[in-house]
């Protein structure tokens, strides 16, 4: 056994110099790439929250200042839309805070544990809440239809409602894909963690 491992070690040592020679990326390029990565991570972390915040501001401006809805149903509808998005923004920010607990320089076990906790949080909170908010948003939107139909020609109301339905289906497919991907990631991390801590 010992001899065999020594043989393997000798074989391994031979590869060292070749490995080193092959990597030619200079330090300044790495730093530039590092800075770019930082920015893209920031964009990924806060991008969703920013886009959603901009949407909320637009909706607030439109519903509260520009267009004064009269029907109670409409009030409930747009508040459902805005309220859902605000909750979603809160979740996005909380999710970013949770994700920052994953440290690349932790021990592998700890890093995998925090990753598992993060993905489990996403599965518990993100999935069901996202679906609820999504449904609430579209119900809210359709609650505006009766008042819209008082001022807009029927064909435009039909076009508007059916477009919303198509957008809803496309978004639902994207959300489903994202949730399934995160579930697969979670399974893989759990598998890695088990492989790391198992003693046999």
């Amino acid at each position, binding site marked *: 056994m010992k001899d065999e491992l020594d043989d393997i070690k000798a074989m391994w040592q031979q590869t060292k110099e070749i*490995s080193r020679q092959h990597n030619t990326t200079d330090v300044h390029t790495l730093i530039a790439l590092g800075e770019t990565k930082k920015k893209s991570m920031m964009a990924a972390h806060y991008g969703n929250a920013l886009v959603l915040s901009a949407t909320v501001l637009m909706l607030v401006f439109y519903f509260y200042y520009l267009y004064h809805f009269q029907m109670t149903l409409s009030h409930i509808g747009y508040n459902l839309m805005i309220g859902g998005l605000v909750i979603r923004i809160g979740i996005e920010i909380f999710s970013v805070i949770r994700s920052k607990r994953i440290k690349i320089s932790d021990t592998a076990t*700890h890093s995998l544990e925090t990753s598992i906790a993060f993905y489990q949080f996403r599965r518990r909170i993100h999935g069901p809440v996202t679906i609820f908010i999504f449904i609430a948003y579209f119900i809210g939107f359709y609650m505006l239809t009766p008042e819209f139909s008082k001022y807009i020609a029927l064909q435009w109301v039909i076009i508007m409602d059916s477009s919303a339905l198509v957008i809803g289906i496309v978004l639902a497919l994207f959300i489903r894909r994202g949730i399934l991907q995160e579930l697969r990631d979670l399974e893989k991390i759990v598998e890695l963690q088990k492989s790391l801590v198992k003693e046999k």
Partner: protein
Amino acid sequence: MNQTDLSTFQTLHSQYLGMVMNLCRGFMKGDMDKASDLAQDVFINVWNALPGYRAEASYKTWIYRITVNTCLLQIRRDKNKIKVPLEAAIHTMEQNTSTEQAENEKILYRAIGQLDEVERLAIMMVLEEVEYEEIARILGITENNLRVKIHRIKTKLKDLIENERRIG
């Protein structure tokens, strides 16, 4: 950009590039190009984590941790990227080595490539002659657990190498 960080990073890069490349190469089943990309990711992560370094572990242990986590992170970020077909990896490797070394390396990387990700990382650190105590600190498991694991991996690797020699 902090001048101290820059100079520390330059030192770390020159000192540990070989170590990181070896681990990445083994993890990527001998594929040098993919190993280079992975090593680049490791040092990008080192640069970004550098302001948070608190000297609780040596730089070597710290960089090993980042390397191991980057490898494991790679698996979940882009599973297709990590699945280097063994034949493709060996082909890349043969282009970079003399015929004499090629056979040995082929056998070694074929065998290592058949271990699972965690086994691969652990045995490569053993081959790099990292102390068991330090490997345990890098992986975050007990030394006893590590010894059991390494014993099992050695046996498995020995069988895999013998098998590769037989068919190779």
